[in-house]
C-alpha cells in the first residue's frame, strides 16, 4: 500500500503510527473513470495469475511510475524486488508495467488525461477491413464485419 505516496508494507505499519496520513490501497486504484492503466495492462498480458501478490505489485508499480514514468525493465525489476510472486515468473509483470507506462505517457502527450481505456477504444477509428480477423479462413460476412465494427475489437481485451 501507499502511505503518503510511499510504497510500504502494510504488515509492518502500525495503525496508530499512521494517523493523519494518506493511505492508498489497491481498492482505490480504480478511479471513477474506470480501471487504472496498470490494472488493464496486468489483465491483458496475464501479469496476474492467482492474484495474491497483485495488489502489492500494482501499488508499488504505481509509485514507480509516479517517480519514473518510463522505467526500463531492469529499473522495474529493481523497484519491485521486494514483491514476491510464485506464479508468473515476473516476466509478464515487467511487460505489463511497460505497457501501462507507454499508454499513460501516450495519453499524457495526447492531453487526454482523463479518458479511460474503454472510452478510447470506443472512440478509436474502425479498423480497416483488412485488419479484421477472417472467420474460418474467409472474410467475414457483412453482418459479421458490422458486428466487429460495433465492438471494435479484433483481439480479446478485458477489464478483468
Amino acid at each position, binding site marked *: 500500500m501507499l502511505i503518503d505516496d510511499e510504497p510500504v508494507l502494510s504488515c*509492518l505499519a502500525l495503525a*496508530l*503510527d499512521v494517523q493523519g496520513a494518506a493511505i492508498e490501497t489497491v481498492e482505490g486504484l480504480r478511479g471513477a473513470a474506470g480501471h487504472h492503466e496498470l490494472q488493464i495492462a496486468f489483465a491483458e498480458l496475464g501479469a496476474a495469475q492467482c492474484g495474491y501478490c497483485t495488489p502489492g505489485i500494482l501499488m*508499488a508499480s504505481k509509485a514507480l511510475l509516479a517517480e519514473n514514468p518510463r522505467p526500463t525493465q531492469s529499473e522495474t525489476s529493481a523497484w519491485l*524486488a521486494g514483491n514476491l510472486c510464485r506464479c508468473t515468473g515476473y516476466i509478464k509483470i515487467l511487460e505489463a508495467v511497460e505497457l501501462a507506462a507507454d499508454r499513460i505517457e501516450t495519453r499524457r502527450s495526447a492531453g487526454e488525461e482523463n479518458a479511460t481505456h474503454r472510452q478510447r477504444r470506443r472512440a478509436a477509428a474502425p479498423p480497416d477491413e483488412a485488419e479484421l480477423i477472417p472467420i474460418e479462413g474467409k472474410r467475414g460476412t457483412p453482418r459479421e464485419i458490422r458486428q466487429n465494427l460495433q465492438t471494435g475489437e479484433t483481439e480479446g481485451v478485458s477489464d478483468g
Partner: protein
Amino acid sequence: MLRLPPFVFRPARTVVEAVDLFGSASASGDEAMFVAGGTDLLPNMKRRQFEPAVLVGIRRIDEMRTITNSNRTAILGSGATLYQIARQPRLATEHTALVEACRQVATPKIQRMATLGGNLCVDTRCNYYNQTFEWRKSIGFCIKKDGDICLVAPGSSKCWAISSSDTAPALIALGASVRLVGPAGSRDVAVADLYRDDGINYMRRRPDELLSQVRVPRIEGLRSTYVKIRRRGSFDFPILGVAAAIRMQGNRVAGASLVLGAVHTHPVVVTEATDLVGHEPTAERLQAVAEAAQRHATPLDNADLTLYWRKQITAVTVRRALESLVG
C-alpha cells in the same frame, strides 16, 4: 497467522520526549523499546523474540529525520530512512559505501520504512534464534532467548548470533560516530566502538539511550565501497559484508580501512588494511590484505549457505572491493 503481542504505543515528537517516555515506562516497571521503522522489531515481536510492554514511537521525530551536509561532516538524523539516504547525490559521491549499504538492505519497500538508526541497532541474527516461539520451543530454546545454551556452539558460554547490519561496517570504514541521548545527557561514540563481542548484549548503547544522529566526517579524496554477499538480490541479510575505504595520494595509498560484516557477533575491523598505507596498491599487497581479512572471518553454521564457503569467499570479495577502489 502470527499476531503481534499486546503492547502500549507511546509516540514521541521530540528526542527529549522519547527519552522521557522511555524513562517513565521503565520507572513503572515496564520493559520499553524504541520503534522507528519497525521492520526488524515488529517481526521479532511476532516471533516473541522481543516482548516489550511499551513501544516508544520515534518515527515522527522531525529533528531525527534531517540530513545536513556541511563541508566537514555529514550529519544524518538516525530517523532518516535508508531510501532517503540512498537518494542523496552528495552522499553517494563522498560516502559511497554508506549509500551502497543502504541500497542493499532488505527490499526497496523496507528501505523506505527502515531507518539508519534502526539498521545500526539491528538485532544480531542466528537461524536457531530467528524462529517462531513454537519452533524455538521444539528445539529447546537458545541462550539468546528463553534458553541457556548456544545451539550453534553448544560448548560455548556466549551467544554467537551474527552482527547483520549493512550500514555499520560502512560507517566504521568511513570513520563515523553516533550520538546517544539518554536520561543523563548525551554522548558521542565512534561506530567502531558501538558493538560488543556478545550476540546478546551486542551494543554499548544502553536500552534507555536513543541513537539520535550519525556523524560522518568528510575526507577529501576518499573512495569507498560496500559489497554484500547474500543469496538473492533482495530481501536477504548479509552472509558477508565488506566495507572498504581508500584514499590515494598520487599512486600511493594515503589511508585505508576495511571492515567485515556478518562474520562475527560484531563488525570486524581488518587492521591489516593499514599495511597498504604509503605503498602502491599492487596486486600482491591487495591479495595480502584480502587473505588477512579471511583469517578474521569466523562464520559459524547459523546463517545461509555453508560456513566453509562463507569464509572461503571472504578473500576474493575483499580483493575485488579493494581493486574497485584503486583501479
